[in-house]
């Protein structure tokens, strides 16, 4: 067999970086009054190319490159495709929002691309240090993105908060890597798994997993590391939230899968309990927190905490079925959440005029398409059949039940019942008349890029809900790249 050129293994990442650099070079030489749309188009093109390259990677024989630090397989390709699609949607949402404003859109596009590159690399890295580096690349980009609306007070505040807490959490992650090295003498995921049973200091390994879990728990905003989420989501611009509530989490879940199932299967009894607690807490804290929110973005922030909890439930299955369920969950969560934020972003406009649930009253009449789309995403978030959200929950809880986690399943499903309450409050508001005293809201006009973003997310959510097999079989192929946790499963 011909050896695969090393560069092929990181082709999507390369394309993203090159596009990002190009954008940074072009924008300064553009006349100041000229529209920045061509830059946006270039960014879109770069992401589409990366998406294509990821799919093309599927044809490569699975293997590693760069001294065993990068691995491409069905698993990495699955996450590449999800991340690139979300980034594509995020760019489409922002296409008109950032144009014609005082902020420099090129900054936004370049940062999104660099962040996307970091996230993609996270999912294919099999060397903990590279995981850390790519995690930092993606995090730093998102910190800045959260603060990009410099002229409003809340956005820089959100960025700063995110940055401070985020770097604190990354430090834990790094400690975890150091302890892993202490316990096993290596930071390569496959070697860690091999060395672990022979480790002289197994206590280090347990501590290492716990540290790594804290770091990742922060990134996916799982309780008890979720406190930053509502503040940051509220303050950051909506198009950015559409991105940062989905893509980095998807990538972080990929890393978590690689670390728990790839590096530390031998001590699963230790991390299993921790993840169990995180899952139960996240679902409960997220949903109970969301119940009282009047601000829509805060409500969706709490909802995203809860959804991180649902995905964590599947980790407890300790089986390939569980891995596939996590992968399916991240894909459908990404589709419906990015879609919901697309509507929130567009309905609110650049100044984010629509804040509270009451402001959304009658949106379905002012703009049937926007209102209908948001209603659809909310139904998917509730987990109504024939939407992606339903099958995502279904697979997660089926996997957990197969593993005998009846209580976690009951906690989870009871939670999804509670969650229906707050999603419905927003959903019914869409179809209700606004109060007579309320100021007349303008009708948001649908433009081409947003329509395309909605079309992508709605059809993805619908396809995941009616033909889940397509995605699930790919996720299964990805899960098959892992050795199973315990011999029997």
């Amino acid at each position: 067999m011909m050896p695969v050129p090393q560069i092929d293994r990181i082709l999507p990442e390369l394309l993203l970086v090159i596009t990002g650099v190009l954008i940074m070079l072009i924008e300064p030489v553009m006349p100041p009054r000229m529209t920045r749309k061509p830059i946006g188009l270039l960014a879109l093109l770069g992401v589409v190319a990366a998406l294509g390259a990821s799919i093309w990677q599927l044809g490569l024989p699975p293997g590693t490159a760069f001294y065993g630090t990068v691995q491409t397989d069905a698993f990495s390709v699955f996450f590449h495709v999800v991340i690139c699609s979300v980034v594509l949607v995020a760019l489409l949402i922002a296409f008109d929002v950032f144009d014609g404003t005082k902020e420099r859109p090129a900054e936004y596009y370049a940062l999104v691309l660099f962040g996307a590159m970091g996230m993609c690399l996270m999912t294919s890295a099999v060397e903990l240090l590279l995981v850390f580096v790519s995690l930092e690349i993606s995090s730093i980009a998102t910190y800045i993105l959260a603060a990009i609306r410099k002229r409003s007070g809340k956005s820089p505040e959100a960025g700063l908060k995110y940055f401070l807490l985020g770097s604190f959490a990354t430090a834990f992650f790094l400690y975890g890597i150091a302890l892993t090295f202490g316990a096993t003498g290596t930071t390569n995921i496959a070697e860690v798994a091999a060395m672990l049973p022979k480790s002289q200091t197994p206590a280090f390994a347990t501590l290492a997993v716990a540290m790594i879990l804290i770091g990742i728990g922060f990134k996916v905003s799982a309780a008890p590391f979720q406190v930053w989420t509502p503040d940051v989501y509220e303050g950051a611009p909506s198009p950015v939230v559409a991105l940062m509530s989905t893509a980095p989490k998807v990538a972080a879940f990929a890393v978590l899968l690689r670390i728990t199932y790839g590096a530390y299967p031998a001590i699963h009894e230790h991390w299993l309990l921790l993840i169990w607690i995180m899952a139960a807490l996240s679902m409960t804290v997220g949903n109970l927190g969301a119940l009282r929110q009047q601000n829509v973005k805060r409500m969706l922030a709490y909802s995203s905490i809860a959804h991180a909890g649902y995905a964590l439930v599947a980790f407890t299955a300790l089986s390939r079925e569980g891995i596939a369920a996590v992968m399916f969950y991240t894909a459908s969560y990404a589709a419906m959440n990015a879609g919901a934020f697309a509507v929130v972003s567009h309905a609110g406009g650049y100044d984010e005029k629509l804040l509270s649930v009451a402001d959304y009253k009658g949106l379905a009449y002012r703009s049937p398409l926007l209102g209908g789309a948001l209603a659809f995403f909310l139904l998917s978030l509730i987990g109504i059949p024939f939407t992606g959200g339903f099958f995502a929950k279904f697979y997660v809880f089926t996997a957990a039940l197969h593993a005998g986690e009846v209580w976690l399943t009951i906690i989870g499903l009871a939670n999804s019942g509670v969650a229906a309450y707050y999603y419905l409050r927003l959903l019914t508001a869409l179809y209700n008349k606004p109060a007579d005293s309320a100021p007349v809201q303008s009708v948001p006009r649908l433009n081409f890029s947003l329509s395309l973003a909605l079309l992508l997310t709605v059809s993805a959510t619908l396809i995941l809900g009616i033909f889940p097999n397509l995605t699930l079989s790919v996720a299964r192929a990805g899960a098959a790249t892992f050795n199973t946790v315990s011999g029997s499963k």
Partner: protein
Amino acid sequence: VLNENILTLTTFVPAAGAVVVALLPRQGRIIQWFTLAVALLTFGLTLHLPFHYQYGRPGFQFEVNVPWITSPAIRYHLGVDGISMWLVVLTGFLAPLGVLASWTKIDHRTKEFYFFFLLQQTAMIGVFVSLDMFLYYAFWELTLVPMAILISMFGRYRGTEAAIKFFVYTFLPSALLLVGIVLLYAKTGTFDFAQLQSILAQNNSGLSPHALFWIALAFLVAFAVKVPVFPLHGWLSDVFSEAPTAMAMVVAGKLGLYSILRFNLGLFPAQARKVAPVMIALAVIGILYGALVALVQKDMKRLAAFSTVSSLSFCILGIFCFSISGVDGAVYQILNEGVTVGALLLLLGFLYERYGTYEISSYGGLAKRMPSLATLFVVTSLALVGLPLMNGFVSEFLILSGSFPGHAAWVSAATAGVILSAAYMLWMIQRVFYGTESTMVTKANTADMNPRELIAVWPIAILMLVMGVASPLWIRAINEGVVQLTAPAAVSMSAVKQ
């Protein structure tokens, strides 16, 4: 060919109609006429079923069974037996009436209304025809969505609250239902109703009796909320007084009761027998409680709600006594309930359109001004209280006589409910239609029923009479379905078929 596709067509024609409604212009009454046409077409399609139903043939009829999702093994499996066939027809029958009831009352946001209205039809029919547990669950959950949105949109005062109450009330136990379904699947590897039935009947599901009991209970609670069974009826009176007529007509009864029959009796007969004493007690309490509370209601819609609790509890009584005639009666009572309460709500809706209130004390002496409405109202009430020759009599008689042996004390108490129902209905009629004319009625001076309203109610009135005198037309198929569902012989039959 039609026999194989009839159920798919019946289920999805309304949904396809909904998509077209979404695209129609908001001009004149185009949307109403179109929805009416779709509803009539659906009704026509449902009528195909009783005309081509083969009596004496075991198993499900008009079956479609193709794989939908390979893993987990979910199949697109539709089919009806004598029970679900008539429920499908009932759903089809009520759809055009719902459109007529909403004709003028829904004068704004019509597109949204009829879109969700048609979607609701698809979801309800889907519940009755699905023979794959998963598919069933999907439709079951889907029935909540259009209903909740419509209640919220068109509520009178506190629509959103009623809608959310309704949704959460039914969604929470449905989550446990899903746990039950998935646990069954995890152990048996199938969602198929017939396969599950034979596996459970032969007792080789691999689940402990303890676990099976809890699963059966999860099923029962989820369904009981939707019926609603006392004491889970908290949502019903709010929904009845808030929901638009077309939605209130279909919200209670049939979906939950059908599910209890199909799954608690069909899959878990032993577990159902275990909880039967409790259910019978709850049913009788529900009958009496509903009737007594209805007696003191000042609002006609709320009276209708509690009367519904009372008469649906008769179905529960019939089901959980496990005699064939009792269960037959229960199924017939579901149909009667759908028809009679449908008529009652239509008539109340017409009154509300004219006078803008459901307050009993505001009315009085209406019979002189609106003779045809008064006539139809009296006919409906007589059917509701179970007057001989009317449909309600047949079902209540079957239930009471079928369940009397073995439960004499409870059934005697339930009989008091029949008397109470006559008391509250006739008392309401007396206060609303007879006596001295109230100032509101004098002042408003409105016309009697118009042709559209007459067309909506007269078919029901005739049907109530026909169902009273020619009940075997319906009960023959129902009885076959019930026998097949409850008899262990039928279970092995379907096992052989698989």
